[in-house]
């Protein structure tokens, strides 16, 4: 069964359907959270929160607004970003990480994880962006920085960063072939 159908069953309290859904989403969710949060123990914690939230709020899913997988990943990304920002605010994040964050994220997160086909495509397409587009997109998405923080790090005006983010995403879409 597909994630969309499973999620409808989950909304009705079907635990078996949730187990099946878990199998579909745990890898993408964990991988994304890990990429943003970095710390394995914290990543597991956030992943668990996201999956529980998926169970709790399944009824809020509206298929007219997109696929179940997009919904789950959007949720996961927001939780991961929240975690990394509060950790940063608390000064937990190490300074050397902040320093190396000025380079494109996909270059330095080479630990773990297998290279899937999608990953390879995204990587290639990211490489086709201009350096500023790529850095604006990846510092925000993979490192959890706000666009103001990105602007500071790259010493660019706010407007430029917003434009680079938009152009970066749009070019990525063209490169990846439009519709997901």
């Amino acid at each position, binding site marked *: 069964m597909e994630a969309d159908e499973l999620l409808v069953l989950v909304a009705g309290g079907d635990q078996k359907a949730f187990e099946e859904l878990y199998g579909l989403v745990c*890898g993408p969710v964990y991988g994304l959270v890990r990429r943003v949060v970095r710390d394995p123990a914290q990543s597991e914690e956030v992943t668990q929160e996201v999956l529980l939230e998926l169970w709790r*709020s399944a*009824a*809020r899913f509206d298929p007219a607004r997109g696929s179940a997988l997009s919904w789950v990943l959007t949720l*996961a990304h927001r939780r991961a970003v929240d975690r990394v920002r509060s950790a940063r605010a608390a000064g937990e994040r190490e300074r050397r990480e902040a320093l190396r964050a000025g380079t494109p994220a996909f270059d330095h997160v080479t630990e773990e994880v297998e290279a899937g086909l999608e990953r390879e495509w995204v990587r290639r397409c990211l490489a086709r962006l201009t350096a500023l587009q790529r850095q604006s997109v990846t510092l925000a998405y993979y490192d959890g920085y706000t666009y103001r923080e990105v602007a500071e790090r790259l010493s660019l005006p706010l407007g430029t960063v*917003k434009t680079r983010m938009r152009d970066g995403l749009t070019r990525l879409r063209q490169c990846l072939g439009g519709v997901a």
Partner: protein
Amino acid sequence: MSLLDRLLHREGLHSLAAPYALDALERAERHRFERHLANCGRCAAEVRALCEDAVRLAWSAAAPAPPALRDRVLAAVRNTPQDPAPTGRNTPREPARGHASRLPGHVWGTEPPPARTRAPRSRPLLVPFATATAAAALVVAALFAVQAERTRDQLDAQRDRAREIAHVLAAPDARGTTGHDARGHGLGVIASVAEGRAVVTLSGYPSPPRGRVRQLWLMRPGAQPRSLGLFAGDTPLVATGLGRSAVSLAVTVEPDGGSVQPTGQPIVQLALKSAGFGE
């Protein structure tokens, strides 16, 4: 605030679409942007597309989750109650499944669709006279069955509509066609070329978000889309004045009261060729 200020303010908010899609707004700014989104069809469609782009970035990060996580999550799920379904959907994202806010010609039937379109699969289905009549009987019965508590006026309106529907379904040249989107939601049409009318039903769609309605449009070559009316719940809509040149029908989600022209991409579109139109 002057008009110019207001326009500048709006433009400022529009430019936050990409940072929003990347979750790169601070909390307060995010809330402000979401409030704006609820009233801005143009940016809602754009945000939707940008969010889908961002999700592509998410996919590429997939990694095997630690095996122990599964047991912990499933155990937690057994002990966690679920939230009830929301009564009204007031979330800001546009329900239309569009990618671009500017609508390409093929979407509105003025050009043939490209091969890689997401337009619904159209499954032509000839409705013989007897079937159409049986369907008419069902529709009429259903319409009257639920009306016991309605006021006199509403009842009269419903009866008129039922009569109109029966009229279309009973036309000797009545033919049907249905289309489904990738999720199995459907648009069903029974139309009569001679009458220039069609009975149109939507099936499987959840209620539109609060403050929005589904609007039906007629697509003709070289002409602007023409509104055929608003859907009220599951009630079939009777579309009139369909010329032979009618190419297709489309449904969009619009602000309450409907729009003069579509503001988003169709959630479902259906060619009328198999119902005898499109000449």
